[in-house]
């Protein structure tokens, strides 16, 4: 059978080729200007820039991702290559009115391109099923944490056992920061129970390659072991309202000794009777600040230098804890107010600060920030 005549006429293919080259050139220049290297671009196609994931079971997820990725890329280049080839190869010549061969089908190739994709997806299904069993495996656990999700913050209750009706030893209210977040011992299996108090949330730590929904009325439980010490940022992944994006948390994986010390201190603190709040008269000038909808009422405050002052803080978010902490330019915390759950008000007595610019931030919601100018 003779091949149909080739078309090399017309400016269409030339123009299309030129545009493709130009767009590709612009893309390369922009990427280079933004400081991207071939390696960093390649890494961006893998979860969390291709870093080694943090938990024992996420390694098998990463392997599965890699396999799916390479198969998808291979199929893409094969099929896209066929499309591009057809588009450039089989153009109609101007004035060519002859019909091409009228091919209605071919049973052999149609069976081939049905069977091969079936084989590929069957393989991928079996592989992902096997991986799923690893990821969802239950193991005897040492640490039991109930992650409590509510609009718009996480808190972590440490339990005295794995069962769902275990007693709460203490509650970690602050979700992020050096003394906030979920502390776990590195290399030890941890069980997390998810409890949602109002709407559906999701516990998502990108470096664990894992998320699970926290559903009201349903207990979801999963196990994991973190391989490497470090702090891992997590975030709510199921829309829960206006503050959804602010619902972040940290997981601190620390060595066993550090964990034990922290754990004992928390248990002791929870057992101790809370000290009555100092009620002294407000000293110095008073600064007003309110919190509503997971946001401060103002982004900029002024305060006098070298003299103690008072922040009258009003939390208007019902059921949501907020506070005011002040950090200096290098990020050291110079003041931290008690966390109050709204609707509530509290006066914070802030010690004298040196002149300069400080940031204030909510310990529960690190996206709530502003600057305080001391002069």
């Amino acid at each position, binding site marked *: 059978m003779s091949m149909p005549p080739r078309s090399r006429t017309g400016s269409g293919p030339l123009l299309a080729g030129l545009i493709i080259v130009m767009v590709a050139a612009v893309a390369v220049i922009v990427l280079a200007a933004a400081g991207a290297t071939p390696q960093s671009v390649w890494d961006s196609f893998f979860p969390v820039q291709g870093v080694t994931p943090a938990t024992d079971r996420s390694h098998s997820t990463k392997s599965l991702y890699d396999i799916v990725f390479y198969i998808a890329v291979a199929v893409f280049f094969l099929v896209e290559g066929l499309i591009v080839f057809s588009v450039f190869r089989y153009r109609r010549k101007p004035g060519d009115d002859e019909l091409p061969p009228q091919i209605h089908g071919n049973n052999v190739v149609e069976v081939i391109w049905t069977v091969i994709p079936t084989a590929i997806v069957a393989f991928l299904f079996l*592989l992902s099923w096997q991986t799923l069993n690893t990821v969802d495996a239950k193991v005897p656990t040492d640490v039991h944490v109930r992650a409590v999700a509510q609009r718009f913050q996480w808190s972590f209750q440490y339990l005295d056992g794995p069962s769902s009706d275990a007693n709460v030893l203490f509650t970690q209210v602050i979700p992020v920061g050096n003394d906030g977040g979920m502390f776990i011992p590195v290399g030890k299996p941890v069980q997390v129970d998810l409890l949602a108090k109002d709407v559906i949330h999701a516990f998502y730590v990108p470096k664990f390659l894992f998320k699970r929904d926290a559903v009201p009325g349903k207990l979801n439980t999963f196990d994991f072991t973190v391989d490497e010490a470090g702090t891992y940022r997590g975030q709510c992944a199921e829309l829960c309202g206006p503050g959804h994006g602010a619902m972040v948390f940290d997981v601190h994986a620390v060595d066993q000794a550090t964990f034990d010390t922290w754990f004992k201190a928390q248990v002791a603190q929870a057992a101790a009777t809370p000290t009555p709040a100092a009620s002294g008269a407000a000293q110095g000038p008073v600064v007003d600040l309110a919190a509503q909808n997971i946001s401060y009422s103002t982004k900029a405050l002024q305060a006098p230098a070298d003299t103690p002052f008072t922040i009258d803080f009003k939390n208007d978010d019902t059921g949501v804890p907020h506070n005011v902490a002040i950090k200096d330019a290098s990020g050291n915390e110079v003041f931290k107010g008690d966390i109050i759950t709204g609707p509530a008000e509290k006066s914070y007595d802030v010690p004298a600060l040196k002149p300069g610019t400080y940031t204030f931030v909510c310990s529960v919601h690190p996206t709530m920030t502003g600057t305080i100018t001391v002069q």
Partner: protein
Amino acid sequence: MATTTLNPAAPAYRSALYEWLTTTDHKKIGIMYLINSIIFFLAGGILALIVRLQLVIPKDATTIGGLVSPEFYNQAFTMHASFMLFLFIIPILAGFGNYAVPLQIGAPDMAFPRINALSFWLLPLGGALMASGFLATGGAAASGWTEYPPLSGAKFNGPGTDLWIMGLTLIGTSSILGAINFLVTIFKMRAPGMTLFRMPIMVWTILVTSVLVLMATPVLTSALIMLFIDRNYGGHFFDPANGGNAILYQNVFWFYSHPAVYIMILPAMGIVSEVLPVFSRKPLFGYKAFVFATVAIGALGFSVWAHHMFTTGAVFLPFFSLMTFLIAVPTGVKMFNWIATLWRGKLTFSTPLVFATGFLTMFLIGGLNGAFSAAVPVDFAIHDTYWVVAHLHYVLFGGSVFGVFAGIYYWFPKMTGRMLNETLGKLQFLIMFIGFNMTFFPMHQLGLAGMPRRIADYSASAGWTDLNIVATIGGFTIAASILPFLWNVLVSLRSGRIAGDDPWEGNTLEWATSSPPPPYNFDHLPEIRSERPVFDARHGQAAAH
């Protein structure tokens, strides 16, 4: 009285406006579907630009990033999706069906012309009801287009959500009426000789879509009504504190909304399957395989709904994973059939074919990045991140919307009697194709880097800023591509080249009548002996085999 003074039949003059508002002609109704859908496409597009502006840089860097409040941001993306899915893609494809199906099967009109008008007029009504949420206390619906309870409950969202429910119920009713109308038309009104296996693929996709609508949309309606009762009349269907179940809503919702994905893509596949053979001058490769693949996708589409719920912990994962993987097979068959149709053809790159090849390329990516979510453990990592946003836009924009524009450029000459401008059409494609990929391709990387969907702001230290800037520039590029399109339509309506009956050398019956066709469509029909009756009439039987 002995004699009755008969008013002589009033000269059939009515104002054009009256004519359009009261018409039961499927062609006019089809065109009204298209216009109404394009209006909501523009409205949804403006909301998308607000979303992109909000996310361009983190709020704490400067105030540009914080364009709108988080409350309004949630309304913006919720209504963006609601407009695009329920008031643009689904209706515009139904509009193409309305216009093309009776013509393509050689029928004078739809089986129930007045019900046809009703199903159209429910759309602007439902759309207006939904959009009026912006005027309500607390604003429009803001819980995402999925409106999961408890978040969508009365405790957390105001009357905007009720307006959303009512609007969507009307839109669903419109779909159901339309589906019945399509089914009866296709089964009862085909011209002599038009057997089922001689129907154009476009008609087949509308047939399968109508079955999906008929089976799935009532289920959505039931979910919406339960939600409405929970919100307003003290029901507890989805309230776990009172014996309800929050996951139940997701099961019922996705039992509709996954088949709805096929409602949103199958007719676009039908359009592409009309365009490719005409502009390759070849028959569609593997017609019967294509029909069976369409039916298989429709059937499998009912067994994969829970793949939207893998992370709920309430799903039998292996089953839904397997079915989701399997749906790739008939989809792959279609892709290969399309390429084989191009293969060894004689391709004329008019704008419809340009958009159709854009469809092939983008839908290929949308299929492949969907396979990642079928692998359950990978889905645990990427679910509800920007990866999913990338995936769905590659399917519904790169797929459906490119198919829609292929259809507009393909049938505009038939609808109006005038050609659209080719240069403007290709300019639109070029800008849209570049803008589309700039917007949505980086979202793969954002999702892999851990950026969740539906957040109004992010930290500068998260490392997501650069890609969000690219995506926002891309979003405005897409918006720019709409300008040559609108200009093209306006100019071509007045002064476009006269099309004639059959400007593309088409295959199917709509090209055997005038452009635009007369009321009731045909003066006479060619013989129908294959799925390409007009081709046969042009070239004679010998050439077809």
